[in-house]
């Protein structure tokens, strides 16, 4: 049992996802209970795996007993378990939120569990083709979840997401084909050795790098290939936008880090400076363009979506700079952003239910009508800007220090400017919430009846806000984890 921990992380949610359709024959609303029990099991497995990695170091598992490099290998190191624990925690938070907020259909919870399975699979896999399969499982589940909204707009958003997402995953697969042609292997650890043997200047290796990175960047949604993302986040139900904004791009960015450090390795980035420069440039453009687009939005959820484009620019820049400090910063910001952005979407969902406000103008003076949600929203927004001691500050600070170490001064300027730009769009909202005259009369909502909001929804958002500040205390643990299991490999 204990040996199979890592594969159970994927198997358990898939088995759980098969239950609700059959249970529908008898019970109407069993989906939520099944998803919660399964996710609690997933959290227990994630905790046990984290403990094993913490005490014994990297865990490797050969699926079906076929030894690597011929079989599929699953690997868990420090970076993996951070993401696995994040997936469990966010899933539980979203379930607490969705208990009341819905959607309530059994099929919704099947897709929810499939998404958990796909994300866990992407995190633990040590095989590039297996990563493609989990990328598509994640994608399929996410398209279904986005489409679960009541209006047809959500179907159009999901279709757009599907077409662009599939092109991204297909580019990744094409890149895997080039890597396979260059080396004849698909195992990540084996590839890192054989790509070096094939020569980093070989056309096959360079093309493989370009296609794989481009494919994953579509999934991360960096500018200018982010076009699927704002619609998908803004037109889906609020439980879904909180869930996918917190996890889907996050795990894709993790997959990119995995490809950079475990497959191509830092040596490749050293040997091919143009690859690193291209990646850093794309990331910097995304930081600036994402922020500028966020400032221009009038709908709050769209603004949050464009903010993700900018924040993921920061994360990718950190990974591309590839000094230990920058990578630690990018990891902290990756996890921190997931908590903050998920919390922000959930808080905006509560505010919409209580007051009907969805636009920046509508947020004026409504803090008093949804005090807990407005308070949490403000704390999360400030954390995202990077006000110390919030976790958003630590991540950005480390990335900036890493860029200074590497002597990339233009990047340092963009990173610092990004903080100001983030402030530009969040300060506007904070000011409206607390210091402006209300534009939506309270009676207009009361006449509608105003949807009820459960305590669990409020607690979820407040916990996210507390974590956005409290996670700073966990940063030394992250450093130690990465030191023990990631940097040793990176810098050997």
């Amino acid at each position, binding site marked *: 049992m204990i040996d199979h921990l890592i594969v159970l992380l994927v198997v358990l949610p898939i088995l759980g996802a098969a239950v609700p359709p059959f249970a529908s024959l008898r019970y109407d609303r069993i989906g939520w209970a099944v998803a919660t029990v399964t996710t609690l099991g997933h959290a227990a497995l994630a905790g046990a795996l984290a403990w094993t990695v913490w005490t014994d170091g990297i865990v490797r598992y050969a699926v079906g007993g076929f030894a690597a490099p011929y079989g599929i290998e699953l690997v868990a190191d420090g970076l993996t378990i951070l993401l696995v624990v994040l997936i469990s925690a966010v899933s539980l938070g979203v379930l607490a939120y969705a208990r009341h907020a819905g959607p309530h259909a059994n099929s919704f919870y099947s897709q929810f569990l499939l998404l958990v399975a796909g994300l866990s699979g992407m995190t633990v896999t040590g095989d590039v*083709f297996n990563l493609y399969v989990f990328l*598509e499982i994640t994608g399929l589940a996410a398209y279904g979840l986005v489409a679960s909204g009541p209006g047809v707009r959500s*179907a159009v958003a999901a*279709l757009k997401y*599907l*077409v662009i997402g*599939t*092109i991204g995953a*297909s580019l990744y697969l094409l890149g895997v084909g080039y890597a396979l042609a260059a080396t004849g292997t698909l195992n990540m650890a084996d590839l890192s050795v054989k790509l070096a043997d094939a020569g980093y200047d070989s056309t096959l290796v360079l093309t493989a790098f370009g296609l794989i990175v481009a494919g994953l960047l579509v999934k991360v949604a960096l500018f200018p290939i982010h076009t699927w993302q704002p619609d998908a986040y803004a037109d889906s139900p609020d439980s879904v936008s909180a869930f996918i904004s917190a996890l889907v791009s996050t795990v894709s960015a993790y997959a990119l880090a995995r490809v950079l450090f475990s497959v191509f390795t830092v040596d490749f980035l050293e040997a091919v400076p143009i690859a690193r420069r291209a990646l850093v440039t794309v990331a910097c453009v995304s930081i600036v363009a994402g922020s500028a687009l966020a400032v221009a939005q009038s709908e709050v959820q769209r603004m949050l979506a464009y903010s993700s484009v900018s924040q993921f620019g920061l994360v990718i820049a950190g990974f591309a700079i590839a000094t230990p400090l920058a990578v630690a910063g990018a990891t902290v910001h990756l996890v921190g952003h997931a908590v903050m952005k998920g919390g922000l979407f959930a808080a905006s969902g509560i505010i919409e239910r209580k007051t009907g406000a969805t636009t920046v103008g509508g947020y004026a003076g409504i803090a008093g009508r949804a005090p807990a949600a407005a308070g949490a929203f403000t704390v999360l927004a400030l954390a995202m800007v990077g006000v110390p001691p919030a976790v958003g500050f630590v991540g950005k600070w480390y990335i900036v220090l890493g860029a200074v170490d590497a002597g990339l001064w233009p990047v340092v300027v963009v990173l610092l400017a990004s903080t100001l730009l983030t402030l530009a769009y969040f300060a506007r909202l904070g000011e409206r919430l607390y210091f402006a005259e209300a534009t939506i009369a309270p009676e207009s909502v009361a006449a509608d009846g105003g949807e009820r909001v459960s305590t669990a929804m409020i607690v979820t958002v407040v916990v996210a806000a507390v974590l956005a500040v409290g996670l700073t205390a966990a940063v030394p643990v992250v450093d130690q984890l990465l030191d023990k299991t990631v940097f040793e490999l990176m810098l050997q």
Partner: protein
Amino acid sequence: MTLDLLTTHYNYYAVVLLLGIGLYTVIESRNLVKKVIGMNVFQTGIFLFFITLAYRAAGNPPVVTEGAGPYVSPLPHVLILTAIVVGVSLTAVALALVVRVYSEYGTLDEDTLEQLYHD
């Protein structure tokens, strides 16, 4: 030389053509069903690329029998079987969404949909 490349590498030309046609259709066509078709053509290009990788001159089918080697590589075939299954599922989901959009708006044209949004 050029003729030689043409006659020995025609599979790769087909791959490039399929990728190009597929991507162009996805970007250029305003019709949602044609976009899904373009996506399929693009994926087919990748499938052909992998299958071509597996080819080996005078290779036998990869069923191990005495003295039958050399074999073509079975690995890309298996990968593409998986990728085809993924592609079918994606097409199914995409078409389900197309049906939902059409039953609501009665159009599959992106520009018309945009207009309907703003009304």
